[in-house]
């Protein structure tokens, strides 16, 4: 049982990292960025590329190497998110919602199959595997790497929380999410802040990608699809647009999945998670922490 909870928390922290990007972008410009899961995939592949180039060096250093790779991957995916916003989404700001959603689907497709062109259709095996010593805590087997990955995730989330609640950029983000026009009148450079949001959200997804690559050991160009859906589910469970909600939702989804899997069998895991999405949207569409938002006409 403790093992189940631990596994749930561990997977949940990945979900939470990806869900954060979803929820930030949605919170600020009300856009469902379908390509977000694919930025996670991009992060995993960038990490893979860097590790392959610096192969011998990296395997020797192990965990430290992974940290450096993590930072490189975050910078690259962040830039990719920036470009995505600039090329695909900014021209359509103010366009009908349907057009923006379709653009997002197109962007997701382009990233997936663009990566397939670069890296080929077959799964790649990550050069650095994080399998190591484990300790027993209350009957659960916890590897040191799992614990440190969770620690990184928690640090990233804490950093984000500080950024959003404690800095000028964060205040600008919150202002835009409340009323973009008024924020513009108050002298906030709305475009720049939205671009920064994309950068941060994408970088977090990229970090999750590298961590997943290092942990699961196998990556392929479609890996972002399912995680994107799961992250969205997590964001909805926590209350979409709410940053703490995304963290909570990610952990909650991880736990639900882990317990549900043990209960009804691993092959039903995804069905179980998506059913939760539908149930939540039916019963409490605003999520655990979300507030009721009135639509402006």
């Amino acid at each position, binding site marked *: 049982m403790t093992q189940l909870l631990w596994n749930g928390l561990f997977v949940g922290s990945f979900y939470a990292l990806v869900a954060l990007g979803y929820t930030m972008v949605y919170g600020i410009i*009300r856009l*469902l960025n*379908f390509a977000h899961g694919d930025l996670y995939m991009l992060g995993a592949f960038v990490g893979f590329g860097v590790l392959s180039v610096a192969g011998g060096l990296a395997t020797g250093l192990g965990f430290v190497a992974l940290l450096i790779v993590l930072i490189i991957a975050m910078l690259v995916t962040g830039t990719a998110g920036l470009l995505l916003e600039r*090329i*695909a989404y900014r*021209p*359509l700001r103010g*366009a*009908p*919602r*349907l*057009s*923006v*959603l*379709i*653009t997002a*689907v*197109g*962007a*997701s*497709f*382009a*990233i*997936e*199959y*663009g990566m*397939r*062109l670069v890296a080929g259709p077959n799964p790649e095996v990550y050069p650095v595997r994080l399998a190591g010593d484990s300790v027993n805590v209350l009957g659960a087997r916890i590897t040191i790497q799992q614990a440190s990955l969770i620690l990184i995730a928690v640090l990233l989330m804490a950093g984000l929380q500080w950024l959003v609640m404690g800095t000028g950029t964060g205040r600008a983000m919150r202002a835009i999410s409340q009323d973009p026009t008024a924020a513009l009148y108050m002298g906030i450079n709305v475009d720049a802040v939205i671009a920064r949001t994309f950068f941060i959200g994408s970088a977090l997804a990229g970090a999750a990608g590298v961590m997943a690559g290092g942990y699961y050991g196998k990556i392929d160009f479609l890996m972002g*699809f*399912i995680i994107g*859906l799961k992250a*969205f*589910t997590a964001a*909805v469970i926590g209350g979409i647009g709410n940053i703490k909600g995304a963290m909570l939702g990610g952990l909650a989804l991880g736990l639900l999945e882990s317990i549900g899997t043990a209960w009804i069998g691993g*092959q*039903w895991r*995804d*069905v179980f998670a*998506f*059913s939760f*999405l*539908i149930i939540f*949207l*039916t019963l409490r*569409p605003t999520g655990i922490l979300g507030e009721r938002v009135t*639509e402006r*006409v």
Partner: protein
Amino acid sequence: MTTNFATSPTRASALFDRLQQNRYLGLIGLAVAALAPFITATNYALSVMTSALLFVMLAVGLNIVVGYCGLLDLGYAAFFAIGAYVSGVLATRYGWPLLATVPVVIVAAVVAGIVIGGPTLRLRSDYLAIVTLGFGEIIRITANNLTITGGPSGIYGIPGITLLGIDLSGPVGLYYTCVVVVALAVLGAARLGRSRLGRAWRFIREDEDAAEAMGINTYRVKLAAYIGGAIWGGLAGILFGAQLSAISPPSFTFLWSALILMAVVLGGMGSTPGVVLGAIFISVLPELLREAADYRYFVFGILLIVVMIFRRQGLWPARAVERQSRRDLREAEKHDAGKAKEVVP
């Protein structure tokens, strides 16, 4: 180039306009479809053409949801899968003739439409997009896990269609069956789009709040569009099973849903001729460009973005003005005549 055609009143544009408004367009399309096997009737050509027809049917069905009503459905392949699986299971495990499964498939599609559309259509339309995406995965994984659906290997040995003792399971028979069914489906969807309900759909697409204020029950009307799309998809699934005689979960991935959406968007959301051409284009193009297969989906993705930024209405846009039906014209005449009489004395 195409943008120029639409904006500047050149002769080419006038010609294009006339072509678009030609009322015999549908008949011409039907004639082309009926005569195509006389040009080439190899098994390969027939199977490509049959697939293209199926794709047209799916695109027209999705057009009801996305084009008319403006709801983004990213799991359309799920209804297609439901149709194929329900008819396949009934036909192979219980020995039903394929035609007898049609009512059951319709019921199953409607139920699935209500289960998914019911809770989500009350929310913002973005939610529908992602929930349908999840629903598509749910259906595929379920089909992959259950024993009655044959698990990962799927169902094989689905019989062909027989009607009144005539065997239509050969490639030619199947092709013409598809021509008839798809023609009816296209016609039906186009008529629906021009009906009172279709008008409500387009109103919701343009401005949901205004529609609500005008007394349209937006929830029910949206649900009707969603269910309509589900039925079209389910029926196409039966034909798919009849064509391939074997179905398995990998045939119903997100890729399919995305390709159908692409056909609708590229052709022109809400425009029947546009969507039909878009579907033929998307389904036949890969056969012509086999070498470029790797680039295909990448280009499709870029194309979606480009179309949305530069030509949102698609290549063959729907006309904004409704054509008055002959009955409307007659009524208007009668009305005018009546008025004239009133004034005279």
